[in-house]
């Protein structure tokens, strides 16, 4: 902190040291790039974790919060804010310094209309083309079509006979000639067709409905024969606007929405949101609740990894490749354990501010131990099976290699990053709950290829089992819920909280303005980062490798389009 101040006198407008892991600073927009470069080169802030836009309508300002941290050199997270005026907002782009700033800045641009100077491809990412220019996440957005005028989508029959439902621009605005200024940009289709250089190349669609996609997204491959020359990714097909919805719900209601971001990681998503709100409220849950939360988080990691790996294996060898079914059967045991605690199989909504909803059922430990023991044996068997399969290793070894440097540069986290020899795990980097008391190791692999990613996942199952067994031994008796007022109204402020999702680094940034509803919630999901890294990874691969690479990333579209 003081280093920044001495290096850039006058550039730091405001600063707050929350703990030894969080540093909030507000900097001069003109010197943003310089300061970031200083942090990256001199202070090892080599991980651009994300960015959030906040619309401070009362102060007539936009805030852009850049979240910077390091891949293991230190554990400080800098949340660097830039404030720009609301009319003609413009910020210098950080894409020159961090490759993965690209998508985060595009999202802020399309949602808030904050221009990023020097951004190479400022095209909409999540929004459909009709909506660009309305800046839907601004606080003064009235709905599209404007909910106050009662307009609805209009039915249109296209030239090919298909009926489309189109949302037309407001008729009043057209009449008055005050349509919002529509930014000009080439559409997705035009951009990808511009890349076709010869007759032997063609564009092949994978998605939005295709066997490899875990949810609707469009992966277009520019191929020449079987070689992929370039890949284009279009997401946003199931964008739900959860962040905006949560601004209109009370804090407690928000938990339900975090479940829906990714159905395999609902417990960790709950945890991230509740953790952030707990920081705002300044409370810590009782120890027993912390243990229950850890047990559930690890159970959800096991079941997510099992499904991810199983699903991925079916991609390699049609749906007839049998280990998938066995993994699903094993997963069923784990889901049964979770169900016995939370009462739900997928959307748990179990974590609460300052505790959990229920206590563990009677005899949970006795029920869990044999299941975990069996799970361990089975996982070892799977690892053995995959390791000894010559066709599997031929398909996977050396495919989609991410070198440690590349993996960090592309901003991936979780198993893909750890498979690239980077022991970066939120449970270590940003310890929460009772993780510091537990013994576990961060699984890494050197190779960085698709095989290593699957191996990391399978071995993490073993680590999770180890963690749960320790929790079952150590869990104390006591209350499971802090006393809280009926209406949760945190003091104005902001908090950023990170957890290790089954897929990687999940961070939630919550801004409170002192009311019952959060002022802004920003989700930094791990899959968003993978998806961004996918196109460069696919270049030069075979069509069949696309399946191996995309599958080994274990994506979840639902979370990208949260």
């Amino acid at each position, binding site marked *: 902190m003081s280093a920044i101040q001495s290096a850039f006198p006058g550039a730091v407008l405001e600063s707050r040291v929350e703990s030894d892991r969080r540093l909030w600073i507000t900097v001069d927009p003109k010197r943003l790039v310089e300061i970031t470069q200083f942090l990256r080169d001199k202070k090892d802030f080599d991980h651009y974790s994300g960015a959030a836009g906040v619309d401070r309508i009362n102060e007539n300002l936009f805030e852009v919060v850049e979240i910077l941290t390091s891949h293991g050199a230190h554990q400080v997270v800098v949340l660097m804010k830039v404030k720009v005026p609301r009319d003609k907002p413009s910020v210098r782009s950080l894409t020159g310094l961090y490759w993965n700033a690209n998508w985060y800045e595009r999202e802020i641009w399309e949602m808030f209309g904050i221009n990023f100077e020097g951004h190479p491809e400022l095209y909409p990412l999540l929004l459909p083309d009709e909506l660009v220019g309305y800046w839907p996440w601004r606080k003064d957005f009235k709905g599209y079509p404007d909910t106050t005028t009662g307009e609805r989508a209009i039915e249109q029959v296209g030239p090919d006979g298909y009926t489309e439902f189109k949302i037309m621009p407001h008729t009043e605005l057209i009449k008055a000639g005050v349509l919002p200024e529509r930014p000009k940009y080439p559409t997705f289709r035009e951009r990808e067709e511009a890349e076709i250089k010869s007759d032997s190349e*063609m564009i092949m669609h994978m998605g939005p409905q*295709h*066997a490899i996609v875990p949810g609707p997204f469009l992966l277009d491959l520019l191929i020449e024969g079987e070689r992929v020359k370039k890949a284009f990714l279009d997401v946003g097909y199931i964008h739900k606007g959860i962040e905006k919805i949560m601004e209109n719900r009370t804090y407690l209601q928000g938990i339900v929405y975090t479940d829906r971001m990714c159905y395999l990681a609902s417990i960790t998503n709950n945890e991230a949101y509740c953790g952030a709100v707990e920081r705002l409220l300044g409370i810590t849950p009782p120890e027993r609740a912390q243990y229950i939360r850890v047990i559930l988080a690890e159970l959800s990691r096991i079941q997510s990894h099992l499904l991810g790996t199983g699903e991925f294996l079916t991609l390699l*060898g*049609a749906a*007839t*490749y*049998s280990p998938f079914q066995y993994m699903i*059967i094993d997963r069923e045991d784990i889901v049964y354990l979770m169900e016995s605690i939370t009462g739900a199989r997928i959307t748990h909504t179990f974590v609460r501010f300052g505790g959990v909803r229920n206590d563990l059922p009677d005899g949970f430990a006795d029920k869990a131990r044999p299941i975990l023991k069996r799970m361990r044996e089975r996982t070892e068997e799977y690892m053995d099976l995959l390791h000894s399969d010559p*066709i599997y290793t031929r398909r996977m070894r050396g495919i989609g290699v991410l070198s440690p440097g590349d993996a960090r540069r592309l901003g991936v986290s979780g198993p893909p990053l750890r498979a690239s020899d980077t022991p970066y795990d939120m449970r270590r980097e940003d310890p929460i709950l009772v993780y510091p008391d537990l013994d576990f190791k961060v699984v890494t692999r050197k190779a960085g290829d698709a095989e290593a990613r699957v191996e990391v996942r399978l071995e993490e199952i073993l680590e999770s089992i180890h963690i749960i067994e320790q929790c079952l031994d150590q869990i104390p008796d006591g209350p499971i819920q802090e006393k809280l007022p009926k209406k949760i109204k945190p003091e104005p402020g902001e908090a950023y909280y990170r957890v290790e999702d089954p897929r990687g680094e999940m961070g939630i940034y919550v801004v409170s303005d002192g009311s019952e509803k959060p002022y802004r919630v920003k989700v930094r999901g791990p899959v968003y980062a993978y998806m961004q890294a996918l196109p460069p990874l696919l270049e030069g691969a075979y069509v069949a490798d696309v399946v191996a690479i995309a599958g080994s990333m274990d994506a979840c579209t639902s979370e990208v389009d949260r």
Partner: protein
Amino acid sequence: MYLSTIIETVSAWAAQEPKIYALAIGLIGAAIISAVINIGAMAVVWLERKFLGDIQARFGPNRVGSRWGLLQLGADAIKLFTKEDSIPRGADKPVYVWAPIIASITTMLVAAAIPFGALRIDGKDYPLVVANMDISAFYVEAALSIMTIAVFMAGFSSNNKYSMLGAFRGIARMIAYEVPMGVCVIAVALMAHSLNLVEIVESQTLWYAFAQPLGFIIFTIALVTDLGRIPFDQSEAEEEIIAGYTTEYGGIRWGLLYFQEYINMLLGSILLVLLFLGGWNGPSIPVITVLSPMVWFLMKVLIVLIFLIWVRGSLVRFRIDQVTDLGWKWMLPLSLVNLAWAAFVGLYFA
């Protein structure tokens, strides 16, 4: 015995009127064969669905036709026949329509020359074959490769990128494996001193699977490849190119293409049994002496089929370049080694 009297009468008549005899055998045989291989292939489909179900810890068909789902395929066939017949707008119509028909014709051509077992009468085996030609092994090989043309027609005419890629993959794969497969057949013919499938079976006092194990392994792998089954089903890899060359087909046209694969699977297993596993050779079984070669034959075919299904349930798919790589760089040289081996050992046997 009256059976032998019938045979004597028939052969006497055949000697008298060879043309009418050939015509009659051809007509009756064609009717019987189309019935047998279609019902046989349905049985194969049922077997695969049931056995794969077992491998994957699920049930397989268990509603239509008792708890074994025996009538499931009938129901599927009715469904396919009654579905709307659609042809994509941009398709090359005649080619699109003829592709499945050519595929069916191919399998019929193959089936014509294949002996479906034998009957043992007075200690002598009478093979059940329609066209017992001198070069039947070679002919079957040649007819099987016509399938490539059907695949290409289907892929090319559909006007679809996935279909096209699937057809390319199918052809690259089939060419790479027809050659070693053919060389293996030649090696067998060398040992048997004949290209006639019946004579090849009769000459197998020692199964050729033991006389030339290398050839047996190569032929089996090439056969799986030719059938387009996992791990060699790149031409219709669902996860990459939707359904490969069959993407644009629907209803009974798709049904025909799909069914050819299973007919081919049945014929391929029979071919493997005939060439390498001693065909219908086996000791006589008391009581059903007449049928004993059939019993041995069907048992072997069943074992080969189950092996093929098992492979499908337990392996992942190769990448197409790995397949052709394996074919040209390993299978072909090894099949030539096997040919040399067969030539030397064949001399010794003779």
